[in-house]
């Protein structure tokens, strides 16, 4: 009775375009579960199938469309803020509250050590299971979350801590109370706080970079992006429903908006792409933690020794240049 349920759960983690891999995986699982045949033959056969999985993954992931990338970026098993906080840092001390209204767990932050050096880390947390997703409101920040981020940034500035952010949100939470408490103002102040910092700031778009809710944590000296993340002014579905009047055209919208790391790097709107392991960050978390840690370490080193005015000036100049002349 229980068997089909387990298989179904395993399949949930496969995306639509990963069907060939799901099929191979199913064969591997069946072989490993079967009592027939010699163990040697089974081992040889599964080895062969695993090789095929790798080559299929390589083929599929080398040719992801922007819309497929959006789905990888939203994959439920993709590492989230809590995972990065645990893997890249030591001594993480989460800090709570905006001091005005509430604690918003959609945006987490606190002090931590990065390779021994004290830093301030801030990021969106989407939550892992149903309870977690509700607790963290699916990573969609309310005004309080952004005001907490501003508070932590200002504190980092006072104590000379570099600010490292991890962006992964569909956008700021669209709700009545969010509007009542000035969601737009909270985002505007978030972006302004980033731009005011006299300490190095490095933002990484780890999954979804959803519009103003992403930007409010990402107006940084360096904007890094995981290879399969996406960063967009509006969700592909939102864009499609406005411009194509059909949310199903999200695939077209994703392509038209140029939301992938590669395209945004070419357009000089992000600074660096951080490669992901074969088949995406969710297939080998340890690998992505190591690569990202190295990339952040590099970028931090390159900002080392710049004084507060210079850090601010460089950051401002970078964003001011983000328009193409006729």
């Amino acid at each position: 009775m229980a068997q089909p349920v387990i298989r179904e759960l395993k399949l949930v983690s496969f995306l639509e375009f990963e069907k060939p891999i799901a099929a191979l995986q199913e064969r591997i699982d069946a072989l490993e579960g079967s009592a027939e045949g010699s163990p040697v033959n089974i081992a040889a056969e599964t080895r062969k199938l695993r090789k095929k999985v790798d080559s299929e993954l390589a083929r599929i992931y080398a040719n992801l469309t922007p819309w497929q990338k959006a789905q990888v970026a939203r994959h439920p098993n993709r590492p989230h803020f809590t995972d990065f906080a645990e893997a890249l840092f030591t001594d993480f001390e989460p800090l709570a509250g905006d001091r005005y209204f509430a604690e918003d767990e959609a945006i987490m932050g606190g002090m931590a050590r990065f390779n021994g050096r004290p830093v301030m880390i801030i990021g969106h947390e989407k939550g892992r299971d149903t309870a977690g997703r509700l607790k963290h409101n699916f990573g969609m920040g309310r005004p309080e979350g952004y005001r907490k981020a501003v508070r932590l940034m200002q504190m980092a500035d006072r104590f000379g801590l570099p600010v490292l952010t991890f962006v992964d949100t569909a956008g700021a939470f669209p709700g009545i109370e969010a509007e009542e408490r000035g969601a737009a103002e909270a985002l505007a102040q978030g972006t302004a706080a980033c731009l005011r910092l006299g300490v190095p700031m490095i933002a990484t778009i780890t999954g979804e970079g959803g519009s103003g809710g992403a930007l409010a944590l990402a107006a940084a000296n360096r904007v890094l992006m995981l290879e399969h993340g996406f960063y967009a002014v509006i969700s592909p579905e939102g864009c499609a429903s406005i411009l194509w009047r059909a949310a199903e055209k999200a695939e077209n919208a994703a392509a038209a908006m140029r939301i992938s790391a590669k395209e945004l790097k070419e357009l000089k709107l992000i600074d660096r792409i951080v490669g992901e392991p074969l088949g995406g960050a969710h297939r080998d978390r340890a690998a992505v933690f190591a690569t990202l840690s190295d990339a952040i370490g590099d970028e931090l080193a390159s900002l080392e020794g710049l004084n507060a005015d210079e850090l601010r000036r460089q950051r401002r100049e970078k964003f001011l240049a983000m328009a193409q002349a006729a």
Partner: protein
Amino acid sequence: MSWLNNLRPRLKFLQKKDSPDNLWMKCRGCGQMIFQRDLAQNLHVCPQCDHHERIGPVDRFTQLFDGGTYRTIATPKVADDPLKFRDQKPYPARLKAARAATGDNEAFLVARGAIGGVDTVMGVQNFAYMGGSMGMGVGSAFVAGAREALKHGLPYVVCTASGGARMQEGLFSLMQMPRATVAIEELNEAGLPYVVVLTDPTTGGVTASYAMLGDIQISEPRALIGLAGQRVIEQTIREKLPEGFQRAEFLLEHGMIDKVVHRKDLAAVLGRLLGMMTGQVKDAA
């Protein structure tokens, strides 16, 4: 050739506007038919119900600058279609239509003049131009206005009107938010006033950046101001929105703006505030 292309549709537009069919218009507030000329003489505010009709930059400049006199400030030309964006209609075709309809190159115009005697730079966003959407052109015009104010040590007043970001420019449009924010920071640091006049509607990325960073935030009555669109909110929370939600008066009640000011009083209020913010000393009356 290009000027001819631009001119022809504009002439057509003007003729159409002046034709007798269009002498009357239906007020979007009360639904009554109003004589166009009466509306124009009343600052485009409905004489019946006080509905503030949307107006463009030229009307705004004329209404707010002393004696209706001002000098327009040139704004930078930007690349028209940085992403080669194609939806159901190519972006360049949408731009062409917007330019023909408004006679302007972009959805944000800048001018300099006096308000209540205070030399001021003013930027006005035009909702009639692709919904006042913010792309590189709007961002560049905003920055140019701020820089003009900075260069001459003047206050910067911006009248917002926008449906949000211009999706056809992808992430370039989002990046106009930090661009504008940097320009505002420069004004703040120079001790120059930055005053926002929110007009109907101001939503999305514009609200989440320069529309909410004013030293003073003024709104016209009943203007729709918010971050998220009402349909999006309704779909998310699956409830009907309360009456007056995201209107100017709602924002005033929630502490997000300083004042709701009727259009007939706007120039006077701005003039008084700018006079004090720039330290003008007046003889005691």
